[in-house]
């Protein structure tokens, strides 16, 4: 009851300023922009031969479970009679594996056998840019491991059966385009040695994550280009909404909520509220939670709105992105704890805003410095090196300060899992060194607890 009262009061206060309307207008503009996006699937007659089947040269060993990418040379895939029916695509697939000499198995049999095996030896390569140009602070050295051609024995190749081949092909559709439930059936027809015929049915293929879509802005008024659906949504969700959008939301929310507590403790208002039957610590914590609820609703509108609109426009509905709502709230919880602490000590909203944004900036700098330091360490032959103290500062800073950057990285991972195809995920090798959730969340929680405890202690023991 008292909590609801304080919450409603905080809302009334927030709605009283003009900043909230700036925020709402920005949100509306942004959601409007997203709503103006148009997605037009590229025609199957072009995508199947020129894009999808071209990628089949890569595969994931261990029946698709491996983290390492393997290659299969010498197999040709030729589609014919491509039919599209709604989002479903059917075609006949001719697979030509170069026949082996001296009675050796053909390349397709070998590939199928290799697909079932673990990757073995690997080489490191630089990742092609699948999703975006590397951001400063990402690992631009993004490397991925490629399996060296997997040795397959004659017996293993001979043991390959038609069901293994269809399973391999079905897995390829899932790995490259994220098409789940592909049905591949061998055609009952005699073929020359090393040549195989299959009927392929790809359900919901043109709405799959990997399917190229020509993207238009302003309801098709501006042609952006042809990109895989999942990648487009990933970039929108990760970089634009959760990157820029979340940054702006956090800043505006810091400004709006920074006034809550200074207004509460202002001479003249404090006496009024303290004389009510509510304890001081409870009052302060309720106010704090009020601020969090505020950003929670704001991000629910922005992220939820983006998610729904993108879903409606593109047909891609993966709920993982919605995790951004609690994540942003949590990141804000850290900043708002700083704001609360400063406000209780100084009674000044301006001080709260400046110090909170300063704190966020320091965390950002430390996060960037840490990433750079990691890169420099990985390059012993780099043209120059930082002094040792710089490494020490960035490492210690990163260890003892809340992992604001880590939360961001983790959210990127979750977003990627919700949008990218399995093979794109393997290219995003940044994924290999993901911070642990426990550490990232735990350390921030500890900071929040300590700062709030200080604020409560001060608020409890002050006169007036």
């Amino acid at each position, binding site marked *: *009851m008292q909590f609801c009262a304080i919450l409603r009061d905080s809302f*009334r206060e927030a709605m009283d300023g003009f900043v909230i309307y700036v925020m709402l207008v920005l949100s509306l503009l942004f959601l409007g922009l997203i709503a103006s996006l148009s997605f037009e699937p590229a025609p199957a007659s072009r995508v199947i031969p020129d894009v999808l089947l071209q990628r089949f040269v890569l595969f994931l060993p261990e029946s698709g479970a491996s983290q390492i990418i393997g290659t299969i040379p010498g197999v040709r895939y030729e589609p014919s009679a491509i039919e599209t029916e709604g989002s479903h695509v059917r075609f006949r697939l001719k697979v030509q594996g170069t026949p082996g000499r001296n009675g050796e198995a053909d390349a397709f049999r070998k590939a199928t056998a290799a697909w079932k095996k673990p990757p073995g030896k690997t080489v490191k390569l630089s990742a092609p840019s699948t999703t975006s140009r590397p951001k400063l602070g990402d690992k631009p050295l993004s490397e991925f491991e490629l399996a060296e051609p997997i040795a397959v024995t004659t017996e293993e190749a001979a043991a390959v059966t038609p069901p293994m081949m269809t399973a391999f092909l079905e897995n390829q559709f899932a790995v490259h385009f994220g098409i789940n439930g592909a049905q591949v059936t061998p055609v009952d027809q005699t073929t020359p040695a090393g040549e195989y015929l299959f009927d392929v049915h790809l359900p919901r293929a043109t709405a799959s994550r990997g399917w190229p879509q020509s993207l238009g802005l302003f309801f098709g008024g501006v042609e952006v280009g042809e990109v895989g659906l999942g990648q487009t949504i990933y970039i929108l969700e990760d970089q634009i909404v959760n990157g820029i959008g979340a940054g702006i939301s956090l800043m505006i929310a810091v400004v709006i909520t920074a006034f809550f507590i200074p207004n509460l403790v202002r001479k003249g208002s404090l*006496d*009024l509220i303290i*004389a*009510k*039957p509510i*304890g001081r610590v409870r009052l302060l914590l309720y106010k704090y939670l009020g601020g969090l609820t505020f950003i929670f609703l704001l991000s629910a509108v922005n992220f939820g709105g983006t998610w729904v609109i993108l879903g409606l426009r593109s047909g891609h509905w993966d709920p993982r992105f919605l995790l951004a709502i609690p994540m942003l709230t949590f990141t804000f919880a850290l900043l708002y704890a700083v704001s609360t602490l400063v406000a209780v000590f100084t009674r000044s909203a301006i001080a709260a805003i400046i110090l909170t944004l300063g704190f966020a900036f320091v965390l950002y700098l430390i996060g960037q410095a840490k990433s750079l330091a990691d890169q420099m360490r990985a390059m012993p032959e780099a043209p120059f090196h930082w002094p040792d103290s710089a490494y020490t500062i960035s490492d210690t800073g990163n260890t003892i300060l809340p992992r604001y950057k880590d939360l961001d990285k983790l959210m990127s991972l979750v977003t990627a899992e919700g949008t990218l195809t399995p093979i794109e995920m393997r290219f995003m090798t940044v994924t290999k060194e993901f911070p642990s959730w426990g550490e990232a969340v735990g350390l921030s929680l500890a900071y929040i607890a300590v700062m709030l405890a200080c604020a409560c202690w001060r608020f409890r023991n002050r*006169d007036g």
Partner: protein
Amino acid sequence: MPVVSTSNLCKNYGRIAALRGVSVTVEAGTIYGLLGQNGAGKSTLVKILLGIVKKSNGEANLLGAPAGTTAIRNRVGYLPEDHLFPGYHSARSLLDFYGRLYGLSRAERRGRADEALDVVGLRKRMDSKIRTYSKGMKQRLGIAQAFFHNPDVIFLDEPTDGVDPVGRKEIRDLLQRLKSEGCTIFVNSHLLGEVELISDRVAILNQGQIVREGTVADLTRQTNRYTIRLADGQAFPTEDVRALGFPVTAHNPFHDVEIPEGKTIDPVLHLLQRERLSLRHLVETKQTLEDVFVQMVESGEPGTDRRQGKTAPLPTAKRAE
């Protein structure tokens, strides 16, 4: 059980001693007035009782619980001095918010808020934002929020500050009504006339100490002074009366005769009779609370600057230009 009781209550703000051993008791169902100069410590005393300020020493109890107990504040109303209501509320929404904090039901909140705003004369404007209110309107709202939840005790720090004369009369009537409903009221004020009109008991605080305490009648009664007026054209026998041992002060056409300890006015009346003077006016003079107050604080060290109740001369040099 007294509603308020403090004993030897002390408060230091750093090096400033705001309260120096204050002991007061307020009985239920009375109106208690606390007087004192600026900086005497009136507001500090109330703030300690409400838990806004921490006491440094001594005892302070409110409604039987130590001052500052959260739950007890359900039964308390408070109008602070220099209050700053959130401008984004309207009078009605503010009372609704406070009502929720007091745990009132929706129906109670609505009914009592409307009634209270009606009583203080804000009903017409209760839906406009507080930031559009005049000073007196905010003060009226402050009074409404202090009593709308039916508290057992109300603390009012300068309740009539900024309120027009009609409003003041209304507030006095309201306080009498609340008292008649069993509410205890504790008023801080400089407006002695007002306090005199409504209070059952009064305390005078000076420099953080209680210098007088009692009923208004106790404080203002003065048995040893009579004001006399004779018929026109008759001269008052000042010297003869003085010769009898009664000090006289003249302020035409009246003469004040002071009666020393153990004597009565009778010898003076006999003298006038003997001299065949006709009496037109004979009154035992009462002091106003203001007289008592000024006397008290003049004898003590004043609270702010050492002004002794007089204004310092204005800097005239500049004004001459």
